[in-house]
């Protein structure tokens, strides 16, 4: 029982760090997936005096992924009353060309501004509609969400790191008698601190294993899957190999670094 108690506080603190880290990764992935969705649905419309080829348009800005010419038929249909076929054909020829441009990724406001400016500078282009107002709002919302998740994760990381540090110091006090006895028989520092490192690494492994179980559970949770589906995105919530490796590495490295700091800062007894 005492042994479980000894481990519990450090395991929980490490688990909080890993949890906040994975939540941050999930939020990042969701934002990226959502941005991709937005990019697919977002387009810029330009009006040109003359016909432009796909190559001509692509040369204007590297952000442009593809361009499609919009058919003038729906405009002409509105003016249809009383115009004969011959005049309609003439009108088709004299009407400006409309192009819809799709982009490689969801642009930032500055990228939109640059794109609009470069399109307007083109000799043939008369008008550009970038829908920047609605774009800016969505983009700012995404940034706000990302910022909030980052701040939240960093706060949890800092607080729990301090908790881990404090817990390791308690361990050191618990083991100080043993460490000083070992010192009296000439044990080098690494051997005296071996228990501290062993406990820290063991707890890091336990915390990583627990985080694996938790995120595997979250990944297969129907309600969570449906939430992502409802906003039209599909992401990897927990990559069993890549994410687990990241979490385990962070837990082990953090434990070793904190244990080393405690050993280095510890005033050596004679």
């Amino acid at each position, binding site marked *: 029982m005492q042994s479980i108690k000894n481990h519990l506080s450090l395991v929980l603190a490490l688990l909080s760090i890993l949890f906040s880290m994975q939540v941050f990764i999930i939020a990042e992935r969701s934002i990226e997936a959502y941005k991709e969705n937005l990019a697919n649905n977002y387009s810029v419309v330009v009006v040109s005096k003359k016909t432009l080829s796909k190559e001509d348009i692509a040369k204007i800005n590297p952000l442009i992924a593809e361009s499609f010419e919009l058919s003038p038929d729906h405009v002409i249909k509105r003016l249809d009353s009383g115009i004969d076929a011959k005049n309609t054909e003439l009108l088709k020829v004299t009407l400006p060309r409309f192009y819809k441009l799709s982009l490689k990724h969801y642009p930032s406001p500055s990228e939109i501004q640059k794109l609009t400016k470069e399109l307007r500078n083109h000799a043939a282009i008369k008008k550009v509609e970038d829908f920047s107002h609605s774009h800016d709002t969505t983009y700012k919302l995404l940034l706000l969400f990302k910022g909030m998740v980052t701040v939240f994760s960093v706060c949890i990381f800092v607080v729990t790191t301090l908790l881990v540090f404090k817990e390791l110091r308690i361990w050191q006090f618990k083991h100080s*008698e043993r460490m000083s*006895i070992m*010192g*009296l*028989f*000439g*044990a*080098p520092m690494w*051997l005296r601190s071996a228990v501290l490192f062993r406990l820290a690494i063991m707890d890091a492994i336990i915390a990583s294993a627990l985080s694996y179980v938790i995120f595997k559970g979250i990944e297969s949770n129907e309600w969570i899957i449906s939430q992502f589906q409802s906003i039209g995105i599909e992401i990897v919530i927990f990559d069993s190999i890549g994410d687990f490796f990241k979490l385990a590495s962070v837990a082990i490295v953090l434990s070793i670094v904190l244990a080393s700091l405690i050993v280095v800062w510890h005033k050596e007894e*004679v």
Partner: protein
Amino acid sequence: MDKVIVAKNLSLSYSGHETIINQASFDITSGSFVFITGASGSGKSTLLKSLYGALKPQQGSLIVGGVELNGVTRSKLNFLRRHLGIVFQDYKLVKEWTIEKNIMLPLIINGYEKSVTQNQVDSLLKHVRLKHQAGKFPLELSGGEQQRVAMARALSHNPILILADEPTGNLDDYSSGLIWNLLEGANTQLKTTVIVVTHHIPESLNVDYKHFHIEYGSIYAVN
């Protein structure tokens, strides 16, 4: 004969306090059995502490096992301590470890192989009559038994020098007898230098010994 300890004009004090040992010079030959006596508070334990580097000389030179302890580095001190067998007044056993593991400590630190370690521990447990208690923890034993464990630990790695601080201070006759036998055996059979801080020199001891007495900060050779 080699000198295992050489002290020249050695002064000892705890930081900020008055000098306890003042300008003492003495040497101890390898393989000798030495008693250090003196009244309570005379500085016997302080001198012993300085011999294993727990108290650095305030002045003068103190060489133990070829290592100058005035200004010694941590790694050199560790090296020296690995070749010492120390018996403390308060035993200094690791409470969380079994008797067996406590005796193993110097062997582990010195990197002995597991088979050697186990044989040595078994043999020592027999010598201190604690074979049946091997798996117990220190707090489950009496004071006399704990001191016998501490003695076995001090002997386990065949040290060049044994430093014992009042090893039989509060022990019954049986435990005291065992401890003196072990110290005597280490000195006569293994030629280990033994330094014992004590109030009373046992009369039954069958070894030639040197006797230093501490009084008013000075160390006198009695015999």
